């Protein structure tokens, strides 16, 4: 069942590369890619309906022994943490394929790479074996490297190489942590579940967790490991930026929740105040850096850094509520940043520039880009946390969960949220309001093809903003299971609608020692 997410894209990539080069119909690779993307998304929705959110155990597990001498098994499983991200991946992959330039150079290679990227990410979200996670985590590097290096902007080679080196470094740190964990815990396999019971001295745990953290913080990215991200975003083409911001960064935060919190809980608690502080610094840094940017894409890229820091903040609080909030913030950021990058892409395609000092008055209903502009304003509002949209719920949850534990850091992050409104309003104000300059008045028509993906994303943003429990119900059980003993868990399972409040109490009562930590 779950292998379909890994095998289908690979199959699609192979099919695409088998399309003869001389074929006059250059659209065939795109059609095949869309087909496969659609089938994967459909499969994901079907799985979602069969998924039982009240269970904490992995569902639809697949287990094939792979390399017995290493204790390395092909073990997939789906739970509430991975399902929403898996869905996000399938969904954004389809959107990225759809919004790619129809007349793109070397279409076969391009679409094959996007499908391979989807394989890597889906595999990492599904892996229940540490080495398998690492395998997929590394697998995604090469397709993304090519996607940036071939179809990127002017400094694409530099940006792609920077991305490659940073991510490869992050990979080996993660691997070192995994090897150390399995070795010191004396486990015979790299299987995830048995390792959760490990009892390693706290000192070693701290070392291992530090390696894992640095690796994952590079990927998220959190200040000061973030420098690859703005370059990669600016140089990447729009669909690749969508995937990068929407899905790939989530590999880092997913790793934090799944492996950081899940495997090293004791050490995690010890390090949590520092992590929260780092998150606060990163949020402020991202916000201030975004204010200074002139390039729309860079503004969005730095806002990504700031918003991913909230995930870290929530994860460091590590109460059930906070982890649910972290999941929600990941999904929300995935949707919002994807929308923003898409829209910036459309603006760039139509006007030929992303410079906020050049663009003016694009909201002009006659000659400008009114619908795109409106969607942009909606996206920005969502990002700044205006109620009624998914961003508000996510940030509210994060701050609500983190405040009792790390009040100071949360307050700093709140300032960061306020700054979000500042830099996005600055950008919107310059780009969309005011008088449309002459040079921009002859813009080509925006066809519906460009609008549809953005509208769908906007719909999701609004719907989840109005009805957050549709999202929360998937992950709260498993978020709780990560940090709480099984007995409390059954309570949650019996009364799923009270889970949020229950989790909140837990943070106050069951684990009171942590509130004194900061």
């Amino acid at each position, binding site marked *: 069942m779950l292998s379909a997410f890994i095998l289908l894209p690979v199959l699609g990539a192979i099919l695409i590369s088998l399309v003869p080069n001389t074929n006059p119909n250059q659209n065939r690779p795109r059609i095949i890619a869309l087909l496969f993307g659609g089938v994967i998304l459909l499969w994901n929705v079907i799985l979602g309906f069969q998924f039982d959110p009240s269970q904490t155990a992995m569902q639809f597990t697949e287990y094939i022994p792979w390399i017995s*001498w290493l204790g390395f098994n092909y073990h997939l499983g789906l739970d509430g943490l991975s399902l929403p991200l898996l869905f996000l991946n399938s969904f954004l992959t389809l959107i990225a394929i759809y919004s790619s330039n129809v007349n793109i150079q070397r279409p076969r290679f391009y679409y094959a790479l996007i499908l391979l990227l989807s394989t890597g990410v889906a595999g990492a979200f599904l892996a229940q074996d540490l080495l398998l996670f690492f395998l997929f985590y590394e697998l995604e590097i090469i397709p993304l490297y090519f996607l940036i290096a071939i179809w990127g902007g002017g400094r694409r080679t530099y940006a792609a190489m920077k991305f490659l080196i940073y991510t490869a470094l992050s990979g080996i740190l993660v691997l070192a942590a995994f*090897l150390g964990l399995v070795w010191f815990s004396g486990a015979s396999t790299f299987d995830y579940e048995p390792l959760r019971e490990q009892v390693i001295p706290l000192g070693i745990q701290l070392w291992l967790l530090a390696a894992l953290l640095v690796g994952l913080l590079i990927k998220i990215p959190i200040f000061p490991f973030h420098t690859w991200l703005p370059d990669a975003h600016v140089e990447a083409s729009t669909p690749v930026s969508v995937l990068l911001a929407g899905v790939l960064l989530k590999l880092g935060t997913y790793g934090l929740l799944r492996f950081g919190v899940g495997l090293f809980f004791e050490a995690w608690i010890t390090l949590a105040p520092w992590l929260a502080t780092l998150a606060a610094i990163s949020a402020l840094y991202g916000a201030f850096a975004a204010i200074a940017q002139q390039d729309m894409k860079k503004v969005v890229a730095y806002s990504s850094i700031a918003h991913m820091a909230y995930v870290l903040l929530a994860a460091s609080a590590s109460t059930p509520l906070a982890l649910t909030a972290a999941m929600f913030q990941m999904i929300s950021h995935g949707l919002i940043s994807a929308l923003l990058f898409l829209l910036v892409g459309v603006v760039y395609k139509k006007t030929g520039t992303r410079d906020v000092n050049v663009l003016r008055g694009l909201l002009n209903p006659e000659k400008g880009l009114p619908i795109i502009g409106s969607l942009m304003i909606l996206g920005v509002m969502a990002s700044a946390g205006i109620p009624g949209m998914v961003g508000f719920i996510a940030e509210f949850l994060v701050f609500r969960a983190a405040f009792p534990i790390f009040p100071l850091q949360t307050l700093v992050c709140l300032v960061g949220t306020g700054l979000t409104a500042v830099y996005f309003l600055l950008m919107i104000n310059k780009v969309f309001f005011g008088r449309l300059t002459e040079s921009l008045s002859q813009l080509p028509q925006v066809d519906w093809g460009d609008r549809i993906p953005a509208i769908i994303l906007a719909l999701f943003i609004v719907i989840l903003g109005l009805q957050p429990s549709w999202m929360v119900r998937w992950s709260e059980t498993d978020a709780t299971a990560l940090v709480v003993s099984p007995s409390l868990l059954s309570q949650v399972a019996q009364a799923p609608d009270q889970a949020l409040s229950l989790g909140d109490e837990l943070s106050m009562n069951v684990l009171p020692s942590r509130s004194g930590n900061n």
Partner: protein
Amino acid sequence: MDFSSTVASQLNAGVILPEGLVIITLMVVLVGDIILGRNASRQLSYVAIAGLLGSVVALYFQWDNSQTIGFLGGFNGDNLSIVFRGTIVLSTAFTILMSIRYIQQSGTALAEFVSILLTATLGAMFLCGANDLVMIFLSLETLSISSYLLTGYTKRDPRSNEAALKYLLIGAASSAIFLYGVSLLYGLSGGEIRLDAIAAQLTDLSSGQSLGVAIALVFAIAGIAFKISAVPFHQWTPDVYEGSPTPVVAFLSVGSKAAGFALAIRLLVTVFGQVTPEWQFIFTALAVLSMILGNVVALAQTSMKRMLAYSSIAQAGFVMIGLVAGSDDGYASMVFYLFIYLFMNLGAFTCVILFSLRTGTDQIAEYSGLYQKDPLLTLALSICLLSLGGIPPLAGFFGKIYLFWVGWQAGLYGLVLLGLVTSVVSIYYYIRVVKMMVVKEPHEMSDTVKNYPPIRWNLPGMRPLQVGLVLSLVATTLAGILSNPLFNLANSSISNSSVFQTASTPVILSESIINRQSLSE
């Protein structure tokens, strides 16, 4: 008792059946070349490949043989040696595939080339199973002398001459040092030449023997490190790799290196079992230096062959992690990695040969934009290089994981971390080549690629190149995913070999050996 019948009954000559097949093939090639003339040389090289494959089959049937000692203790055909011999034979078969066109295009005689290559193979195979000092040295020399000849094979080319001379001088010096170390072993053990007998004599190190053993160890390691081109015994590698005919380089980087590692395992584990911490320390230093220097210097190379030379130094450094680990798993990981390395490295060399045959150059910059003209070559070279860099799910990834995991289990945290970091560095220079081929736009294409000749596989000698290319491509892609049988093979080759049992408790095979005293009467 009749001398000849006694000896004949104890020889157990069947253990060298694979080598016998290689010798017969060698004779067929040499004599056939004389009788049939130059036109038949291509057919003769196919005969050579058939003979080598026959040898692999013979090796297969010797797996788990109960009687592994042959020639009165001179040769040990245990599973460990079978795995290494198999690797070497396969690498030679691949090398012949890729050399047919290359050698013909350089205008030199093919049949002689193949026969010298077969002799080198023979030496390497005997080296893997050699169980006494004379056998070790003689097979080492067979391998070395054939390698010198191969290196200088295109004798009108000054680069080839220079390479051969350098290789000969440094090689002869290292052989001499190795011989000195081995002669010390002979003296220290009181005139024993069989490895297990020497080990039995060297058990008591407290009584002043330690200095002698230490010097013997250092000298023996100097000889071995030359063969596996570990830093600081690597100086010959870049020049020889650049100047020699490329198929020879392919053989040197895989076959010769595998033989060196086989020798290292057998000699160090059997004879120097008493001083294990010492040789592990030396090899740790060699591994650290090789990984750092090989990977860092490879960054700056502009010639593909030189880059592969430094990369092979670095890869030897990775393999040494398994040796330093010193456990059964460690040796198994070496076997596994070398087996995988065979395919990916020979695949890369096949691509380099193909490109140089078509364009006449091996500069990395000349590869730019190749994807437009030759997709198959681009794909194969990319896959092989990425596999060398350890990108999943290719074979090299699994090999490296195994090595690192074993190293970690043995507590070599620093070495493993260094290996991890340097493998990131290696990804950088491997991907630089891939970037040249794949990423460059059509207008950035190099002149060489612009004038790329139309791809014709039907030219004489091209078909075997194509076969080698596709085989190594498939093997590199699938050997990782389907690696469990290979893992089992590697592990059982170690666990069933007598070396690792006799290392602790030497067994004297007195019943099968003619007593020295009885001979002298």
